[in-house]
């Protein structure tokens, strides 16, 4: 057992080293490639997916407000970090806006988490009492309300109404979203393995039983909701940096559905599943399935049914297949572990041995 632990640690370190080396390589030599884009966006979506999974998969609260919290995070970050000199240009219809100061990137990033958490607290007070589907609709509605408020002309001096926000502090290295996401996801993992995490899981499995065991339902649900929106906000800020512009109209309910589907593909209740799911989803939708949108991908053979939009169609059919037939997703509710992988291969070998023996005995 002890040997296993040492081996696992060593393997993890090697894997981490390979990943970092790979990222450094991509950062240095393929900075503008599709691969770099997919990696950056994948890292950001992993954080958001994990934050949604904390709610849906670990606490059993079916929330559809994630895009709303991301939007608040993105706006908080970008409003606070646009350099004062550039404000006149960005807020050209609102006389430079009313915020006339600029905070450092890291402060902006932390505030991008705190402000959505405050909103989550406000909305959580009334909404968290609701049962599953009502909660989903209420949070979805909350996201829509926030979107309408941000686009309102009267708050234009603060949010630039429906115009773009741009020129805010940005990252250059592709390592940046990875580092931020890794820190945040690490925190969520620690949380889930703590007594809080066990309380969340108890609430998910049976609310009434959990309450009978002395878990304060309202308090723990609120904690999960706040933490989830905090990290969704940071994810939103990262997404804003990735796109280098923010507009409220992009944070629609479709975005929440997308994140939800990532969580489902990865496995509800599995952190590693969500991470794998996001990279897979982003890679497929942005890169690997691109050829489906191209009428003549190979040898100038014209395939008439392949035209823009076909990629998303194929994609949604695949998602439906996962939802209907592989309900557990990639990881189910298990986590990635070296022991798991070794056991998997051992089983595979045994099966082969068995079938070989069966063939031999016949």
């Amino acid at each position, binding site marked *: 057992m002890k040997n296993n632990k040492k081996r696992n640690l060593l393997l993890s370190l090697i894997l981490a080293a390979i990943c970092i080396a790979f990222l450094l390589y991509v950062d240095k030599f393929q900075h503008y490639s599709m691969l770099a884009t997919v990696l950056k966006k994948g890292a950001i979506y992993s954080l958001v997916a994990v934050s949604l999974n904390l709610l849906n998969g670990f606490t059993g609260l079916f929330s559809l407000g994630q895009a709303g919290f991301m939007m608040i995070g993105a706006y908080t970050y970008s409003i606070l970090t646009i350099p004062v000199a550039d404000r006149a240009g960005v807020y050209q219809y609102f006389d430079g806006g009313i915020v006339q100061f600029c905070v450092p990137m890291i402060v902006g990033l932390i505030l991008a988490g705190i402000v959505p958490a405050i909103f989550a607290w406000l909305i959580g007070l009334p909404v968290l009492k609701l049962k599953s589907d*009502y909660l989903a*609709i209420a949070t*979805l*509605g*909350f996201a829509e309300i926030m979107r309408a408020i941000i686009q309102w002309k009267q708050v234009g001096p603060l949010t630039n109404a429906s115009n773009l926000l741009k020129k805010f502090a940005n990252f250059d290295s592709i390592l940046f979203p990875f580092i931020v996401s890794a820190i945040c996801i690490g925190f969520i993992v620690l949380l889930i393995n703590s007594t809080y995490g066990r309380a969340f899981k108890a609430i998910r499995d049976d609310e009434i039983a959990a309450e009978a065991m002395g878990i304060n339902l309202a308090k723990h649900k609120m904690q999960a909701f706040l933490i989830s929106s905090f990290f969704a906000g940071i994810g939103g800020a990262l997404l804003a940096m990735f796109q280098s512009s923010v507009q409220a109209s992009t944070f629609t309910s479709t975005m929440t559905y997308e994140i939800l589907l990532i969580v489902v593909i990865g496995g509800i209740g599995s952190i590693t599943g969500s991470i794998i799911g996001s990279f897979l989803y982003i890679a497929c939708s942005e890169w690997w399935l691109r050829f489906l949108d191209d009428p003549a991908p190979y040898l100038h053979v014209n395939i008439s049914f392949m035209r823009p*939009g*076909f990629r998303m*169609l194929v994609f949604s059919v695949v998602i*439906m297949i996962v939802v209907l037939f592989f*309900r557990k997703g990639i990881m189910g509710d298990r986590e990635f572990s070296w022991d798991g992988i070794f056991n998997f291969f051992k089983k595979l070998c045994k099966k082969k041995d068995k079938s070989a023996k069966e063939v031999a005995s016949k």
Partner: protein
Amino acid sequence: MHDAAYYIQLLLSGVTVGSLYALIAIGYTMVYGILRLINFAHGDIFMMAGFFMVYISAECSLAVSIPLVLLLTVILGVAIERAAYKPLRTAPRMSVMISAIGVSYLLQNLANYITGGIARAYPDIPFFTQVMNVGGLSIKRITVITPILTIALVVVLVILIQKTKIGMAMRAVSRDFETSQLMGIKINSVISMTFVIGSFLAGVASILYFSNYGQVSPMIGAMPGLKAFVAAVFGGIGSIPGAVIGAFIIGICESVIKANETIAVFSNAFTFALLIVILLCKPNGLFGEKLTEKV
């Protein structure tokens, strides 16, 4: 200030929009009453019905295409139930809801693929779009037809549910799923019937809505769908008269808000604010039945 005619026009357009929401909301409320499932795809069925009309009317005359569109919409609704919800009947409610979201995503992408993402012009139905002159007001005939047709359909539906055998079965299933199964009710045919009715009404709503609106686009179903759902919750989920009244209230409020320049951007947000308020003050809606959870 505006004159009385302006306000009457505002009220009329509110009633029209409200009755369309009512037709869609009935589909939501019936499905929720029986399956306890928010059928997220319902708004997209409404959208698909619009596209059926666009493509079929290009080939056939209106007299043929309208029944054909309604038939296809019903088939689509039942097919979705069979393919995406039936296999998950014993699964947790969250999985079914995710499946509904998946279907909605699929239908939107399908429509996007077929049309290339461009809005299509809806065929003109002259009978509906003719302008009438009533007491100095010039209104489209459809503004009058829509509420009347809606109320007529709702009355028929209520009679169907109260008087016929299948209606009785529906009420039984929505009261207690398992017991009614033990009493020999064929659950699957009842559920299919619910989807038939819901999709049929969504089809009717789509014809009325789009002939007024003029064009169909792949994403158009989401918003009316969600609003109709709010109407269903507002009236008390599972209650048909409740859904209709909720829809009328939302429709009228929306047209008033839209008419006011400064707050027009909140016409969608208002609906959701109303939802949150109603869920807090009266979680079972105006006419909903109180459900208690057993351990």
